[in-house]
Every structure is written in structure tokens, then in C-alpha cells.
């Protein structure tokens, strides 16, 4: 499903060169739930960004669903992300001016769909996270857990086969964190969605199929 070969990520300034990722090789199977752990600054988010095509590796090869996506141009990458990848961020990143319904529809705006189709798909996604009674609310009217559920609905509305979650429970208390984790587990089990999650929480990580640890940009 996802193959990373010899991925390196270097940050260069005039005087200094920092290695964020050092020769990462990774294979993630279809339907697998992988968690990535490691101390702050070890390169977890950088790795997730590279897998999610939000950032480019300095060298190495990325294959997703049999396609060598590391060679894609910007427009192709944007299209690929829209069709195959869903993102969940630690700080939700909902657009405050848009209603829950409009926020969830955001990925669908970049597909050739009618308003009616978008509404239907967003309603289904919101229902699956238990928020179909909050469609016309705005993010400021929701709790942290509800915001993250909206973010999950936004990530799954386009039916992507891969979800990348960057510390999705990091800003939530344990009750809400568990709630979000259960939704992700359910998505993985019922829809066979491949999920890669960065987390600091050992308990959450142990609920996933596999745990990958990083230290100073290296795989342990």
C-alpha cells in the first residue's frame, strides 16, 4: 500500500545542515493501523508530512497504491491527495467562518461534484462521527472533541483509502481522546482504511496494529 525507500530529509541553511530523517524504509499494508512514536523533534511529523505528500524528501522513493508519487508535479500531487489521502491535525484546523457542514465539504470542493452530492456525502460523514445534529453549528460552538470529530468527518468525506493523523488526541482530555481513538479504530476495522498516526501516548499507540519508533530521525 505504502512503500518508503531510503527516505532522507535534510534542512540546510547557509551555515548548518540538519538531518530530520535518516534513511527511512517503511512498508505499510492495506488496512493496517500504524502508529509512530518518538520524542519531540525526532522527525515524526516530518515523516507523516512526507507520506502525506505535504513535504518532499531530500532523496528516496515513495510509492503509494503502486504509484511512484515522489515524481509527481504539484498539480498531480494535489489531485492525488484529494482522492486518496485524508488528514487529521492536532489543532483541528477547522475554518472558523464556515459551518460544520461547509468545513466537512471542503475536500469535495476540489472535485467535480454538485452541491447536492456534496451535501449527501458530508451528511454521511458527519453521521458516522455522530455529529449529524451539529451540521449548521460553527467551530466556535463546539467542544474540542466535537471539533476533532468534525475534522475526522472532513478527512473521510472523500472516502480516501489512507488517513494520516498527526497527534489527533494531543489537544484533548483522556475521555475525549479515547472517543476519537475509538472512531479511528472503527474506521480501520469497518472500512479497512489504512491509518498512520503520530502520537505521544503509549496507550493509544498500543491499540494500533504496529508501532514504529523514531529517534533523531532514525528508525529504531
Amino acid at each position, binding site marked *: 500500500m505504502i512503500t518508503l525507500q531510503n527516505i532522507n530529509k535534510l534542512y540546510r541553511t547557509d551555515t548548518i545542515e540538519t538531518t530530520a530523517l535518516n534513511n527511512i524504509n517503511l512498508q505499510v499494508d492495506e488496512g493496517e493501523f500504524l502508529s509512530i512514536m518518538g520524542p519531540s523533534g525526532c522527525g515524526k511529523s516530518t515523516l507523516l508530512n512526507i507520506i502525506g505528500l505535504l513535504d518532499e524528501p531530500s532523496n528516496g522513493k515513495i510509492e503509494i497504491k503502486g504509484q511512484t508519487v515522489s515524481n509527481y508535479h504539484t498539480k498531480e500531487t494535489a489531485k492525488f*491527495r484529494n482522492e486518496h489521502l485524508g488528514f487529521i491535525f492536532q489543532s483541528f484546523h477547522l*475554518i472558523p*467562518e464556515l459551518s460544520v457542514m461547509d468545513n466537512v*465539504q471542503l*475536500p469535495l470542493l476540489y*472535485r467535480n461534484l454538485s452541491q447536492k452530492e456534496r451535501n449527501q456525502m458530508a451528511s454521511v460523514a458527519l453521521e458516522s462521527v455522530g455529529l449529524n445534529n451539529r451540521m449548521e453549528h460553527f467551530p466556535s460552538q463546539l467542544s474540542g472533541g466535537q471539533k476533532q470529530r468534525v475534522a475526522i468527518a472532513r478527512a473521510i468525506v472523500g472516502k480516501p483509502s489512507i488517513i494520516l493523523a498527526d497527534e489527533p488526541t494531543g489537544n484533548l482530555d483522556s475521555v475525549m481522546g479515547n472517543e476519537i481513538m475509538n472512531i479511528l479504530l472503527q474506521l480501520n476495522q469497518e472500512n479497512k482504511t489504512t491509518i498512520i498516526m503520530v502520537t505521544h501516548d503509549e496507550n493509544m499507540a498500543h491499540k494500533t496494529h504496529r508501532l514504529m519508533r523514531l529517534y533523531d530521525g532514525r528508525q529504531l
Partner: protein
Amino acid sequence: MFSNYLKLALRVLQRNKFFTGISLFGISFTLTILMLVVAFLHSQFGAKNPVSKTDELVYMRHLKMAMVQNDTIWAKDSTQVDGIWKYDSTFQNVNNNISTSISWYGKKFLDSYFRQLNSAEKFTFIVPTSKYNVYVNSVKIDITTSYVDEQYFEIFDFKLLEGNFISKADIDQKAYMAVITSELAKKYFGSTNGIIGKQMLVDGKNFTVKGIIEKAKMVNLAINGQMFVPSSILPDDVYETGYFGNYMAVFLAKNGNIDAVKAEIKDIVSRVPFLDPSRTNGIAYNQIEAMPFTFQESLARDVIYMEDGAESLFYLRWIVFALIGIFILVPTLNLINLNMSRIMDRSAEIGVRKAFGADSNGILIQFIFENVILTFIGGLLGMIFTIFLIRLSNNLNLLGELVLEFDILFFALSFFITIVFGVISGFIPASKMAKVHIVEALKYK
């Protein structure tokens, strides 16, 4: 997608009320000024009754006579020749203007030389805007009277509301007939109804009202009278000294060829004999120059006085363009600056949109669209302010005879300016943000 952008744009404007207020004030104020300038130019320079043939008219308002004498200037200086200081003399021949006089044309001068221009289809000789005070029921009325001939109303197509224009018979019979504006009719008679044939006492003479016209809505000496009477009632030698007098002439060019009219006028004047000094207070004028100008040159010359009307028009145009340019540029730069800081706040949104499939062009279009919405609202406000100010100006006669107009073409032009303004001020910030890397954009909380 655009309905989503529109929804978002309106909510963003509601959220940042201070920014929105500042931006809308800047945009609407700028556009109001711009639209007022356009309305002014359109109303003053545009072709409409009674000057619907602006491009075919040549005005002769002033005659210039000068006495020029050749003089020799001797300049003495010291210079070194073979290391020895010597005096050096220079002689320079120059034309010195001893005396220059500029005034209106004399009737006899016009009659003698300008009644048969080959290049003109029609002509009219006018004594424009003489002012008289008249008392009606103890109320003083200022009446501006123009003395005209029978072709005047053929060249200037005033809208006739009732009665008739001055005819050739009126001129030939030296009839005390008057064509008056409806505005004067209301002031003098209290109404415009049933006053044809009634008498008006002006300057101690009784005039019979022959026609009622709509007043000219632009400032122009040739058309700004309230009362038009036959010029033949004036004595032949009225105020005339030599070639000067109280008249101006307007020619309607054949086939619109105004250059031919100008050239013919200059040619005729070049052959006019110089006056004997005994007729000009002892001044031996040896240069005569008619100054034929087009309608627009004539107006421009009233604003920027230059010898050559074409030069006045040239400078006036550039000044107007430069002012309009500055008026657009300054608020555009301000809006760009405001947009830059506003758009930075939405960095995370840009990151999310890109993560979920938006490309740079999509982001660019979204933010330009939002700015166009903002400027569109500002434009609408500007239009409302403009209409209000135009009405205020017209009702209070703030610009004298000039009546500002607001028509479809003017509306379309203003709308176009608004959109250009929106696109320009939105483009730079939007294109900068559209290029921001997703990971960097997402770092903003």
C-alpha cells in the same frame, strides 16, 4: 465552489469588522472621488444637447494683436586671447513684444472675413452672456442674455419645450423676440405655461417671449444664457475699436473636418491688413492671430490657460489621468498592505485547503474573488455616495450651470474600475500566500 467562496468571503468580512470598515471606507471614498471626476468630465466634455456636435465645432473666442519689434542686444564680456585679457562683444537679434492685446471679435471684422468659410457648413456670431438685473414683484432677478443670430439654434441643438427659435425674419426685422429657459420662465412669470407671446422688460426694452428651451447643463460661455435675443438689435458699432469688439464666432465644420476650418481661419487672418495706429491708440500692431479652438480645447483653455488650446487640452488630459492614477494607486497600495496582514491570519486555512487538494491557482482565485467581493461592496457604497453627492451638487447648484449626470455607460465604467481595483489589490497578497509551503502554512494555529 464560488457559492462557498462567497459565503466564506461574507463571513470573513463580518468577522474582521475593523478591517472591513477601514477597507470599505478606503474603497468607497476612492471610488466616490473617481466617479465624481468621471461624472464631471462626462457632463462637461461629453456630447449632449445643446452641444451634441462637439467634434465638429470650432470656436473663435479671442483675437490676438501684437506689436513686435526687432531689437539688437549688445553684450560685452572679457575673454583671454593668447594669454592676454581682451573685451569680447556679442550682438543678438531678438523679437521683442512691445504690446499684446487679446479681446473678443468686432462684428464688422467677423462680417468682413468670416461669413464665407469654404470649410464651414454653418456659423454663428454671438455676444455671449450680458447680465441684466430685473425686478419682478420687488424681487431681483439676474438675467444672463446672449445675443444670437438665426443659425445659432441650428448649431446648438437646444431642446425646445414650447414655441419657436429665433428666425431669420426676427434677425432681419430686428425684432425684440426672446427665447428663454424654462428656469427663467418660472422665475419671471412663476410658470412655464401660457407665456408664449408675453412681454418681458429687460434693460428697459420689451421683449416678446417666442420660445421656451431647456437650459444647457454644462458650463460653456456660448450656451450658458438664460435669454437669447436677436443680435441685430444691437447697434452695429457696439463697443468696437478696430478689430476688437464683443463677439465670438462658432463654426460647424463640413464633414466634421475641424482641421480644415482651423487652417482656413488662420489663412484668412494671415491676409488681414494691419490697422492704422490712429485706430488703436497709436499702437502699430504688426501681428494678428485668430485663436480657433475645438470645443474641448476651448474648455481646457479655461482651466489651463496656454496660447495653444491643443496644448491646454494635452496638459489637462495628462493632469486628469495622473490624478486618477494616483487616486487609484494610493488606496490600492494601502489595500494590498491591509490584505497582506489579513491573509497571514488565514495561513492555516490555506494549508488545510492545499492538504485537501487545492492547488495554488485555486487559492489565488479564492482570495482574489474575496477581494473582488469586498471592492464590489465598496463600489456599491461608492455609487450610493456618488449619486447622493451628484444630487446634492445639482440641487444646490454647487457647480453653477453644470448639471452632473449619472448614466449607464458611467455606471459600467465605474463597475469596471471597481473590479480592476479588486483584482489588482487582491492579486499580490493572494499570489504570495498561494505559494507558501503547506507545512509552513499549517504551522499557524
